[in-house]
């Protein structure tokens, strides 16, 4: 750990004053940052070899846990878990069988980040503390275990149930894809200075590719326009739930619902939640005003009742 607890404490105390002074701004619609990085997964190119799953386990030092393997053990893990940060699922869809790779979607406006009490889950460089070399703007959702209390509200919030919990450990952590943020190479330029996902590096067919989100979005559009009969017209993650930094292309005739994605509105739930929850507070004015009013009324009534009480006592 690069940051000692002591310096962290100092920073926290200093920031405390600032936090109380700053007003929580109304949550505006979040646009992806220009430097945002992401992944593009093309379901039509995926052959289901699961090299990405193995590479992910190796890169993140995750054990092989056969308890979640499919019936023939060839598929490997069937779903994300505390030992599996990415998985390739075989799904039967209305357009025939299809593969889909799952991992954290690195939302543009993530519900988990809105949910997290202390910012253990945070956008790179926008957390309450730096876990070491974080650059703001990449948009990668990172996990800082030393700020996590294990409340698991992120799991309630995440529409994709991407964060997973170590249920069988006395001292558990949350586990989720951090886009191999630790494999980044500062000597290289561009996206590789931020992260270097092992799954993208190892993919033999180029079904999953890493790069700046804007470039990946352009690439996805190019593939769609070049082969309109091959691809479904939608790019999942462009707008869904406020947008994600991992983008998905599906084969023509395959719906994203069949691939296991939820139907999400264009507005992120983080925005909805913060809009609704913050509105009545009026930047913290309401509780103070309510308190003052309540204290005033209660005090006055207490005075009145004790006066009435005294008068009653004097009467007889």
């Amino acid at each position, binding site marked *: 750990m690069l940051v000692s607890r002591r310096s962290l*404490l100092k*920073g*926290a*105390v200093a*920031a*405390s004053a*600032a*936090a109380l002074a700053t007003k*929580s701004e109304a*949550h505006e619609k979040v646009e992806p940052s220009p430097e945002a990085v992401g992944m593009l997964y093309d379901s039509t190119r995926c052959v289901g070899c699961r090299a990405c799953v193995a590479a992910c386990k190796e890169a993140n030092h995750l054990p092989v846990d056969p308890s979640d393997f499919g019936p023939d053990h060839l598929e490997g893990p069937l779903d994300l*878990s505390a030992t599996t940060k990415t998985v390739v699922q075989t799904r039967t869809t209305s357009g025939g069988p299809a593969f889909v790779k799952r991992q954290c979607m690195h939302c543009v406006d993530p*519900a988990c*980040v*809105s*949910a*997290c*009490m*202390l*910012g253990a889950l945070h956008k790179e460089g926008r957390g*309450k503390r730096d876990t070491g070399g974080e650059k703001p703007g990449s948009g990668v959702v990172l996990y800082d275990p030393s*700020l*996590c*209390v*294990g*409340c*698991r*509200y992120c*799991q*309630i*919030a995440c*529409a994709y*149930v991407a*964060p997973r*919990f*170590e*249920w*069988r450990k*006395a001292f*558990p952590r949350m586990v989720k894809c951090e886009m191999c943020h630790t494999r980044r190479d500062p000597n290289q330029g561009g996206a590789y200075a931020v992260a270097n996902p092992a799954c993208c590096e190892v993919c033999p067919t180029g079904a999953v590719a890493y790069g700046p989100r804007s470039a990946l979005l352009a690439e996805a559009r190019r593939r769609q326009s070049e082969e309109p009969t091959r691809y479904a017209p939608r790019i999942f993650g462009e707008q869904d*739930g406020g947008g994600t930094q991992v983008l998905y292309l599906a084969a023509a005739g395959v719906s994203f619902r069949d691939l*296991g994605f*939820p139907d999400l*509105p264009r507005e992120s*739930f*983080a925005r*909805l*939640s*913060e809009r*609704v*929850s913050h509105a009545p507070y009026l930047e913290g004015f309401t*509780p103070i005003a309510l*308190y*003052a009013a*309540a*204290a005033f*009324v*209660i*005090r006055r009534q*207490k005075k009145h*009742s004790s006066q009435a009480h005294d008068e009653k006592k004097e009467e007889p």
Partner: protein
Amino acid sequence: MRGEVHPRTVGGPLFDRPVIGLLALFAVAAAVIGYRFAHGIGAVSNMNDGFTWGIWEPVNVVVFTGIGAGAYAVGLLCYLLNRGEYHALVRPAVLLGAIAYALGGASVLIALGRYWNLYWLVLPGMWNLSSVLLEVALCVMTYVAVLWIEVLPAVFDRVAQSVSPKRAAWGRRWGARLSRAMPYVIASAMVLPTMHQSSLGGLLLLAGSKVHPLWHTPFLPLLALISCLSMGFGAVVVLTSVLRFTWSARHDQELLASMSKVNGGLLFLFAALRMTDIALRGKLRLFVVPDYHLIFFAVEMILFLVPAGMFFSRRVERNHRLLFRGAVAAVVAGALWRVDAFITCFNPGERWHYHPAFGEVAVTVGMAALGAAVFILVSRLFPVVALEELHLRAKAALTSRPVMLRRAFGSCPGGTPVRRGEYVRLHRVAFTVIHSDGEPLPSGPTTRWVRVPEALFLLAVPVVGALYVLALPVVLLATALHALLGGFLRAARALLSFLTSVLTPPWAAGRAHLSGDAGDDEEPGRPAGGEPDPQLDELARRIASERERRASGR
């Protein structure tokens, strides 16, 4: 008649059967909790990444605090709307609230995976102000403290009733000081629940794709706030009724009925707001497709509307049983709405299934049992509950006969008139307060009571309490084993004695036996119920001596 209400210490045995039973239930929970801390949450629960909160947060926090909102609801009526007549309900409601919220907080500690990181919460610089859960956590933590401060007047009252004039004066002085500060405490007790109860509903705003659309709406915070008030009012009526039956506590039907009318209005408001919201958002089409969610929706709506209608009926107003049932329905309605939104009608995706494991249920039940036990213990020791005047008068009538006062050093039997003060029964620990000189000790003459010096008593409460908490796991396992094994042993003994009596019946001449139950053949030869007949007795003696002679002759 609504006069001044004086809450009294209930007194009586501290560890009677109900309390031991409740603590035994908690002992099971304590064992589960211990196992959870050693082996992880997954080892005792069926919680999974989809249903990540299981029943602990939805029931132990969201429902318990809804019930605990009685303190908030009655406080609003009593202090903000200046309805002083509700004052009698405040102390029990506040104690209920303090216990329910403390248990909610304790349950969170058990459910948190990485509880050792909690200390960050005290540093405002680390707060993520967007987090609804942060708001809930901070608010609930503060409110638990505020509620226990609100319980303090009962403690100071207790000291003010002290036998020693010095200590009584101290109690009165600090009681008065606290009472001057109370408006500011109570004001925060009005604001904090408004904030976190609405946020508890707001927690699910983020999970928009998972919560069924009939439950998910931007009105969730407002609905949660209304439902906590209705649950709170309901819980206070239920509590008052239960106290009346157990300790003949004061039970003002008229007062409860008029309070329930407010509750009825809230229940109607909730139902109307919810239906309007569903209609305006174009969700009415959801009612056309048959779906199991609709059953839950219908049950909820019935549970909201039936008590609402009941509370406005004249018949229910006068009948305390019906009012009690209505209040139970109101609590269940709010609880069901909360549980449905968090569990039953929460769908994290196709792969996820959940039903609570034994460990989870044991913890939830154990926590509720602990709450009930603490309520009983506190009201036995401190003036919280207003007892019925009749009950007090009956007690006073007993004491009015002229008596010699005993200066009780050493123990004295039950029924002895004694000096006022605190008395403890030796054998099965019981506690009583004698309020005036010459009042007799409770229970029969076979019990022995010892007077405890007040200073010792006041000192002993926290010390014994602390020791008790430290020894809790051991004590509780022992009581649980005792309760479990005791029942088992009694049953085994009864079975064995039955079997032996069947196998070797005590024969008696001239009688037929199907089984050798002891009750069947008491004193053979004496006609039941009749006068003893000297002729018959003579005959019996002769028969007996003849039998003896033959037996010895053989």
